[in-house]
């Protein structure tokens, strides 16, 4: 630590340098600055993620405004109970994630580990339910296009509302699989991230001074929850009221 104008490196300054937190990287003044830079970087990344999903939300909005009845018919074929269950699972996982951040902030390593494990299990639960739903769609021939040889899209299982076109039902399923598929990919990445964080937490890398990787992974996890908060009503619920 050489500051211009200082006579020379004093003994005490040298000692102070040595007691710097081991996680502090040399291009940052202190951990506080490092933490804020890390968090800000994650937010910038999340902005690009919002734009990424934004394109798909736009596609949904556009086609729903043009083929409302077909979208409602296709949407009503989804299992809203599984969707609602998954929403609750994700919200609970956001809570346990927030609790993991809180635990590391107050220096409770064991609680951090337990809440990270619970968060990972909840994430896997969500993915498991999603797999069941995808399998139901496969069984009902609702995988759009000819993605699976010999198993083409066939909307005959979908109960069409009066005036709805069967052809446009397929557009809904393209959007459904694109959006929930990309969301599921994010969930898988999130589970991977949290597993790495869990590993380093067990190794004792984080403490109340330095835990930015947990905080930043939490931001990502909550963001993925955020996307689902919009996906659930848009994909599963809008159209239920037209059922009868």
């Amino acid at each position, binding site marked *: 630590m050489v500051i211009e104008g200082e006579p020379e490196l004093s003994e005490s300054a040298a000692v102070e340098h040595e007691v710097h937190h081991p996680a502090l990287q040399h291009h940052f003044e202190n951990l506080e600055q490092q933490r804020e830079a890390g968090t800000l970087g994650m937010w910038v990344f999340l902005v690009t993620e919002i734009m990424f999903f934004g394109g798909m939300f736009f596609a949904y909005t556009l086609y729903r405004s043009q083929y409302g009845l077909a979208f409602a018919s296709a949407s009503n074929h989804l299992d809203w109970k599984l969707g609602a269950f998954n929403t609750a699972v994700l919200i*609970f996982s956001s809570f346990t994630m927030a609790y993991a951040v809180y635990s590391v902030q107050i220096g409770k390593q064991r609680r951090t580990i337990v809440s990270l494990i619970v968060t990972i299990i909840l994430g896997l639960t969500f993915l498991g339910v999603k797999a069941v739903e995808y399998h139901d769609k496969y069984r009902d021939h609702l995988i759009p296009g000819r993605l699976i040889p010999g198993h083409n899209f066939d909307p005959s299982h979908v109960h069409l509302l009066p005036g709805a076109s069967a052809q446009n039902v397929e557009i809904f399923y393209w959007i459904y699989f694109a959006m929930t598929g990309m969301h599921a990919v994010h969930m898988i990445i999130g589970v991977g991230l949290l597993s790495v964080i869990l590993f380093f937490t067990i190794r004792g890398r984080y403490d109340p001074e330095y835990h930015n990787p947990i905080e930043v992974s939490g931001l990502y996890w909550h963001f993925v929850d955020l996307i689902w908060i919009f996906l659930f009503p848009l994909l599963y619920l809008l159209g239920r009221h037209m059922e009868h």
Partner: protein
Amino acid sequence: MSEHIVSVRIYLVIFLVLLVGTALTVAAGFVDFPGPLNVIIALTIASVKATLVLLYFMHLRYSARLTWVIFLSALFWMGLLFALTFSDYWTRQWLNQ
């Protein structure tokens, strides 16, 4: 600006409100409201839930102003995306009149 520690109680309250919001949006989904009200109600509940996640779980409420600017820029670009593209789709039929 040092790190703000949000209390467990706040996290719990937000968690419960989010669950209630989910139940509300499911219940409202089955009611046949007049006009476009179903969409408006669903999006309003989702936006409130999203705001709570952003403010408390994601600590935006306690974050630096720069973080707010970065986040709001996302809404700005999203707004541009929707506004400019829809201005195209909504006005296409005008040519045929």
